[in-house]
């Protein structure tokens, strides 16, 4: 298949349609407007439905309804819009509704800046709503990865009956790159996937109380609620097998960069330059932020690794909290941060690594 030149946001939409997504609801917010715009054009071509909701709140709830029928469904937004969706996301997680949402994230709390940033790490991985639920969180670092992870996200969602979050930083969402698209799932395959969910889908069933479809976003009985929470916890634990991580020159690295998404991309070229100068830098890039590849950090040889450099477009640092779990105080963790909509510069990363190298080498 020949390569095409596509924008990250449009790639989300096309990959979703190819994965069998047949319902999308969303609301305008920069920098993800190309997602709903693309779906608005594309859905009628494939017999799917597109609705521009009156708000992010309405949109996520439309997705809650659509996904409750067993239809592969998604929504997208950007940081403040995702905050508005958090109640609906929590309902989907509690009711165990498979759906996918993309956060093409931007800077700062509040309305923030419309420029790209990585300020929603903790929100995405730890608390996208009330009640302590979790989702798989996927963090692409290229438009091709946007395609591949979006396509896979629907399978994860259906497998687990749980929402999946695509954390796509604003740079990846707005940049264009050559990509190859996956197969278009046929109408028969899409119907089959929906049919497979019919036992629980809220579409009408023969009158038979014990077997009615009852999509419960909560439970009156405390024992039922505890059971649901235990089931969910077991699901979250099962994700250890789904960890995806890229390790770059980790085998002999003395300084290991920890980064995800766009920061990891920039770090990679910084490492190439540093290595040419004889500085042994490497990188661990989580592709799944939840489940987090703690083992990659646990298993580093700390007799060789002198320091970790946490590179992220967030101030204060957020991703560092998960990095620290695996490192477990066995070496210092330094930070290289920017925020507010400025992109992490390669030169800043290089300087940070060199500074650490000089300090440690002097010991």
């Amino acid at each position: 298949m020949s390569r095409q030149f596509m924008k990250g946001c449009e790639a989300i939409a096309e990959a979703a349609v190819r994965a069998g997504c047949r319902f999308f609801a969303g609301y305008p917010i920069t920098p993800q407007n190309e997602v709903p715009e693309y779906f608005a054009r594309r859905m009628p071509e494939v017999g799917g439905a597109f609705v521009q909701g009156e708000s992010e709140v309405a949109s996520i709830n439309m997705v809650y309804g659509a996904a409750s029928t067993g239809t592969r469904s998604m929504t997208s937004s950007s940081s403040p819009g995702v905050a508005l969706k958090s109640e609906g996301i929590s309902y989907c997680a509690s009711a165990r509704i498979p759906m996918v949402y993309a956060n093409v994230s931007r800077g700062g709390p509040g309305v923030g800046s419309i420029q790209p940033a990585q300020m929603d790490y903790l929100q995405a991985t730890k608390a996208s709503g009330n009640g302590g639920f979790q989702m798989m969180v996927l963090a692409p670092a290229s438009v091709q990865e946007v395609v591949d992870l979006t396509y896979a996200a629907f399978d994860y969602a259906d497998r687990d009956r749980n929402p999946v979050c695509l954390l796509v930083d604003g740079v990846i969402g707005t940049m264009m790159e050559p990509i190859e698209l996956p197969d278009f799932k046929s109408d028969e395959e899409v119907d089959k996937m929906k049919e497979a969910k019919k036992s629980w889908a809220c579409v009408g069933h023969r009158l038979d109380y014990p077997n009615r479809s009852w999509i419960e976003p909560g439970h009156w009985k405390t024992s039922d609620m505890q059971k649901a929470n235990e089931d969910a916890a077991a699901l979250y634990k099962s994700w250890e097998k789904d960890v995806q991580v890229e390790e770059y020159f980790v085998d002999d690295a003395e300084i290991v960069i920890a980064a995800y998404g766009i920061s990891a991309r920039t770090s990679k070229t910084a490492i190439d330059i540093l290595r040419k100068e004889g500085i042994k830098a490497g990188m661990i890039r989580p592709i799944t932020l939840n489940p987090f590849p703690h083992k990659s950090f646990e298993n580093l040889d700390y007799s060789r690794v002198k320091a970790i450099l946490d590179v992220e477009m967030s101030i204060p640092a957020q991703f560092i909290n998960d990095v620290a779990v695996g490192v477990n105080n066995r070496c210092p963790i330094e930070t290289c941060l920017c925020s507010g909509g400025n992109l992490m510069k390669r030169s800043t990363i290089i300087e940070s690594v060199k500074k650490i190298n000089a300090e440690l080498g002097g010991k």
Partner: protein
Amino acid sequence: METNLCIAGFGGQGVMTIGKFLASATCDSTDKNVTFFPSYGAEQRGGTANCFVVISDEEIGAPLGDVMDDLIVLNDPSLQKFLNTVKPGGNLFINSSIVSGDIERDDVNVIKAPVTEIALVLGNSKVLNVIMLGVYVGYTEVVPPEVVWGTIEKKLGSKAKLLPLNREAFERGLAIGREYKNN
């Protein structure tokens, strides 16, 4: 080999189109890696607009480099804002019709093209970006001109009646770029 290009001007001048056409042409015609990254202000018109194109044989890291090999400026504020990002020996393409500020560097190659004036002579101010794209391709030969033209043709698809005008605009730009290159 990696080329970093920044294109900057007012919103509405077709800044993004230059970048997208060039990057798409690279994607269509080569095996190179290429990225296009836009940076908008909040305004739809009038505010500043700039975008970045990276073309490389290697895997591309950030979609905008710290240092630019080439800079295209379509207005004065962009010149002031981005001049210092150009590497020594880099190329600066300016819309000399309206960019009147002094170029306070003597270590860059300056290619001046009065693209606004030419566009008006051709009868449509909107084609100034296609002229500038021609200038850039004619000078750098980063992608073969015919490939770039093929992409323009494809993108204009539904507006076939605009093709002759755009062809003329592109050719005028190519000629200016080639002239600078050969001097």
